């Protein structure tokens, strides 16, 4: 197991190295060159030349790349144009919001997706199954920001059940501890603040959950169907085990394996989805900041955030693969 983890971590090195190469190339092919990432659009030719010199852009490429790597290693990703603060700091400040939203979406998707997928498989070919399958297809095909529009227009604006924007009602006196608003409220015993933050999470959570929900339902259904046809399930039933025991110990446990891996696949989609969802609901996480950075041409933020997200994505995938080997002893052998 330790060897497996070490090997997987070592495999990360070329990936990260290549990623840095790609980002370096990206930065150099930006319209206006890498200095565009530091200069205002209104900069004069003089300041441009000065910046080029101070950045060492007149030196050979490989020296520039070495510098770039050194800055990356020091986690120095430059400053945002629009706010002037270091990109890493901006990321850190907004990250809890996105984590909160992602966790909410994942809880919704897993909590509803697995039971529904299981039920659909048990009632294979009946109405519930057909509805579930077509519903999940719809979930994949609906543009996530349109779902956001709909939820906002119907449940927030028209019916007023949920707040339509932000993470917490402005003016609410809440103490910040961790940056996770729901958790903060619990820690400081300001439960009304927690409740308020939770209500703000519902609509963006549903919108963001739509795709993972659809995928989890389909995966669970397909996987349960496959396991239900296995010999060991028939054996278990034939030897007179109670149905609930067969269901729990033989069907669900085996059917969950592929579902567990698919959750890793979903994290990337969630981060993409967060950009759109957070923009619709002005949620103030990394997603909406990234969307702002796109329209402001805030290159340091764009580059830094994409870099951090890619690394996170790779790490999450690693964690998922490791958890998979915990769930399935057969994987460890390889």
């Amino acid at each position, binding site marked *: 197991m330790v060897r497996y983890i070490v090997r997987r971590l070592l495999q990360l090195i*070329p*990936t990260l190295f*290549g*990623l840095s190469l*790609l980002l370096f190339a*990206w930065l150099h*092919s*930006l*319209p206006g060159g890498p200095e565009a990432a530091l200069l205002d659009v209104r900069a004069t030719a003089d300041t441009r030349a000065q910046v080029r010199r101070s950045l060492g852009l007149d030196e050979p490429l490989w020296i520039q790349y070495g510098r770039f790597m050194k800055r990356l290693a020091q986690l120095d990703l430059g400053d945002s144009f629009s706010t002037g603060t270091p990109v890493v700091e901006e990321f850190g400040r907004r990250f809890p919001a996105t984590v909160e939203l992602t966790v909410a979406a994942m809880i919704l998707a897993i909590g509803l997706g697995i039971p529904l997928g299981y039920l659909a498989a048990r009632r294979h070919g009946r109405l519930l199954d057909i509805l579930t399958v077509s519903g999940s*297809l*719809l979930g*994949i*095909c*609906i*543009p*996530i*920001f*349109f779902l956001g*529009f*709909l939820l*906002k*227009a119907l449940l927030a*604006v028209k019916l007023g059940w949920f707040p339509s924007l932000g993470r917490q009602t402005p003016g609410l006196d809440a103490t910040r501890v961790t940056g996770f608003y729901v958790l903060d409220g619990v820690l400081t015993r300001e439960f009304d603040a927690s409740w308020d933050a939770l209500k703000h999470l519902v609509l963006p959570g549903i919108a963001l959950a739509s795709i993972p929900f659809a995928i989890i339902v389909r995966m669970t259904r397909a996987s349960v169907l496959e396991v239900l046809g296995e010999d060991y399930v028939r054996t278990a039933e034939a030897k007179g085990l109670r149905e609930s025991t067969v269901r729990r110990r033989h069907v669900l446990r085996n059917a969950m394996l592929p579902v567990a*891996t*698919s*959750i*890793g*696949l979903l994290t*990337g*989609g969630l*981060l*993409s*989805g967060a*950009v*759109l969802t957070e*923009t*619709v609901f002005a949620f103030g996480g990394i997603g909406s900041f*990234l*969307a702002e950075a*796109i*329209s402001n*041409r805030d*290159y340091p933020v*764009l580059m830094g955030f*994409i870099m951090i*997200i*890619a690394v996170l*994505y*790779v790490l999450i*995938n690693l964690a*998922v*693969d490791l958890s998979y080997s915990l769930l399935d002893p057969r994987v460890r052998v390889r």
Partner: protein
Amino acid sequence: MSAKTDRIDRLAELTAARADEGGHGLWYEAFKRLRRNPMAIAGAVIVLVFVLIAILARVLAPYEPDAQTWLGETSTATMTFPGARAGNLLGVDHLGRDMLSRLLIGSQQSLLVGVVATVLGFSAGALLGGVSGACLGLFGTAGRRVDAVLMRFNDMALAVPSLLLAVSVATLLGQSLITVMIAVGVTQVPVFARLLRGSMLAQSHSDYVMASTALGVRKSRIVLNHILPNSLGPVLVQVTLSLATAIIEAAGLSFLGLGGVDAAHPEWGFMLAESQQYLSGALRFAVYPATAIIVTALGFTLLGEALREALDPKLRK
């Protein structure tokens, strides 16, 4: 490897196991199963209607998509826009243009985005995956090294969430519809590459390849005439599915302000993105283009999924 690569690999193996097919070829059997599947029929009908509308859009559209004929009757301040009526079956948009005409003409752009992005992703990916697969399957140790390097880069590209990859590409190219096509296409490259490589790898172990090798057929011939044609099944499934994702992802990029803004060539994603300002007054501005996107994507997805099932040896009972 990771879950994303897992999914692609499983699709790639579809052509591998087909021992007892009994007389008829893979495609004949697949087509027979496809014809019996209502999902496939529904998908095919939707796709067919969509393509027909796109081709005939200029004939079907009652007005020019950028003619602001009813501008006088609209008011963004009070959120009053003429709804469905005799002359405008789906009402008028915020600039006094006929909604139905814009939707019909918009189908052309969406089809274009989907097709161009997919063709781009497919050809670049197929080239990369084809070279990789051919090297790995036939050219020994050296080939394995080439494959390892190519696939390492490929997995890296897969490691970046697709929308962010598209955004990075789009920032390089500036705001236009072509940008969107290229950006969405680029996200498809690594998927196709890994898929074709896996599929070719599965084929290169089969008996007919061994037989051709034993007969002394040149390696390039084996790859081009035998392995490649037999590896295309899963790729075709992915092409169909990727047409759906391309249209949805293009809408996302438009929403982020990276799409084309040409009024004479409306695009569904851009129409949907634009509608955000009028949500409180005219939800239909969002509902129409969104419905068009959803139905089209659904058509391609249904067809793709049905094709996957038809090709899957496990589901053939």
